[in-house]
């Protein structure tokens, strides 16, 4: 159980980051990382709670981004409304998946991936709405009740606020009747049905909530990057979100946030290693998965375990009992 003290401390750390790092490029990257965290939190609900392997989150992200950008650019809608509309339209479009939510693991993954490809093609080809491959330029800065978020630091705090709300919302859902039903479904569908849980109903609802989350993340992205291109929303994006969740730790909300930050920041930090950076990054991900199947969130118990089993070497023998038994 996380105490309120831990939460306040973590929030304080996030709040001081843009004051310690005043370089606007890095502040922008931190904003991108937090958008990634919102995306990863949404996918965590699908994969970590309900066991639904979806590779379509990138599509809902794109839908949210374009809805928000088009509504503000072309129709002059205020940011607040466009932001909510982005979430709602993404959520509604997830209803298209209702007929396939019952598919088992890998089939569902491929089917949602197909959905992402279709949505990408729509973004690419429906120029009248999306600007096609030219994309949308000059998406307006967010403005809430007359306050315009102009600096990178302002934008960072806007994204942080949304991320905190999403985190708290999903934390509440996890510890509710809805969350328990999702966990039950992921572990035994027949037993869940015998308890009165409708599988299609709950899986669809789970997709709906996750799509809403991705949709508002898309809206933030649109007004943060201020330029949209369909190439930002290919299935590569969905896979990147999946990597965030798995690296961070399946089933853990803090894990999803950590995973997103690592996946966004690592390539930036490794930038000094030039062309090697993506190879290094890939290798780090592989090693991490080999060490801890629970991702980064699963590392802490393993380390604690190793420390507690460690006995000062007597007669030269080291930590033999510290071997992993997985």
């Amino acid at each position, binding site marked *: 159980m996380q105490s309120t003290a831990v939460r306040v401390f973590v929030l304080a750390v996030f709040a001081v980051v843009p004051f310690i790092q005043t370089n606007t490029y890095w502040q922008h990257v931190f904003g991108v990382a937090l958008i990634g965290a919102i995306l990863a939190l949404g996918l965590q609900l699908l994969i970590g709670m309900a066991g639904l392997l979806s590779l379509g989150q990138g599509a809902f992200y794109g839908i949210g981004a374009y809805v928000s950008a088009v509504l503000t650019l072309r129709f002059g809608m205020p940011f607040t409304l466009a932001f909510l509309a982005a979430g709602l339209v993404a959520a509604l479009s997830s209803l298209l998946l209702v007929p396939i939510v019952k598919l088992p693991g890998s089939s569902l993954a491929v089917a949602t991936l197909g959905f992402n490809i279709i949505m990408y093609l729509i973004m690419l080809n429906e120029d009248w709405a999306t600007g096609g491959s030219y994309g949308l330029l000059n998406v307006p800065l967010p403005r809430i009740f007359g306050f315009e978020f102009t600096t990178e630091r302002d934008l960072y705090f806007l994204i942080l606020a949304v991320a905190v709300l999403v985190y708290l919302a999903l934390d509440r859902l996890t510890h509710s009747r*809805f969350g328990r*039903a999702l966990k039950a479904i992921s572990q035994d569908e027949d037993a869940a*049905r015998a308890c009165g849980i409708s599988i299609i109903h709950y899986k669809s609802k789970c997709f709906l909530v996750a799509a809403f989350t991705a949709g508002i993340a898309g809206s933030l992205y649109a007004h943060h990057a201020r330029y949209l291109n369909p190439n930002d929303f290919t299935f590569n994006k969905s896979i990147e979100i999946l990597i965030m969740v798995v690296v961070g730790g399946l089933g853990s909300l803090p894990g999803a946030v950590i995973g997103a930050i690592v996946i966004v920041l690592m390539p930036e930090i490794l930038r000094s290693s030039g062309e090697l950076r993506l190879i290094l990054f890939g290798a780090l991900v592989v090693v991490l998965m080999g060490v801890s199947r629970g991702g980064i969130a699963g590392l802490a118990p393993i380390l604690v375990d190793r420390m507690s089993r460690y006995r000062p070497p007597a007669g030269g023998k080291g930590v033999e009992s510290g071997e992993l038994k997985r």
Partner: protein
Amino acid sequence: MTALLRTDQLSCRFGGLVAVSSVDLSVEAGHVHGLIGPNGAGKTTFLNLISGHIRQTGGTINFDGQDLGSMPPDLRAAAGIRRTFQNLRLFREMTAIENVMVGLHANTRSEVFSSLIRTSAQRWEEKDIAERARAALDFVGLLGSANTVAGSLSYGHQRLLEIARAFVGKPKLILADEPAAGLNGTEAGQLVGLIRRIQAAGVTMMLVEHHMEVVMRACDRITVLNYGKKLADGSPADIRDHSGVIEAYLGTKPVYTRSEHHRTAEARHAAH
């Protein structure tokens, strides 16, 4: 006495195999109704038909005055039919109390939105769910393991946890599929006591079981299935003496012990 559950010519066919064949059966409200028969007699299939996990190919099921038709299992659970499974089907990675809380799903209502803004009704319901789940764990004697992950409980305790999950919502009918399987003598004896207490709480039970002592001691009425057909129906005493039942379990050829065989030969010799 009124029948809570009545099947009429209930049948289930898997391709060429007739698993359940035109079974008429009625379970009185308040009874513990045993369903016995040799392996492959169609007992589990029968339970699956009642719980809705399998669809019948013929016949009807009437529960509490309502034709169940092709109602899916989750709605049957909401209508008051709960079950346990032959091969433990717990939510293994959830704690014991969470398993029982899921058992209250059909009895509670809060959804996504009310959970997000924590309405007073939702908070009250969560408290109520936790209290009822603890009471149900206490009822089967597992309160001490409330926060243990279900998969790491002992086998006997997992069986009890499944019963608690089925019982917690005080359904009208519990379908129990071999609850005594894998239990030792003491545990089986305690199970009979638990079944009686469930009955005393006003819950009707249908019990599929191989453990004859449990069946004979716990059941008010017993139905015997063989090759998917109803072979006999009656009180435990009737079933014990029913020749067809003995045949179904032991075979049709008369079985003599060696000494009996000798005696009959001697008797024959003496008669000459």
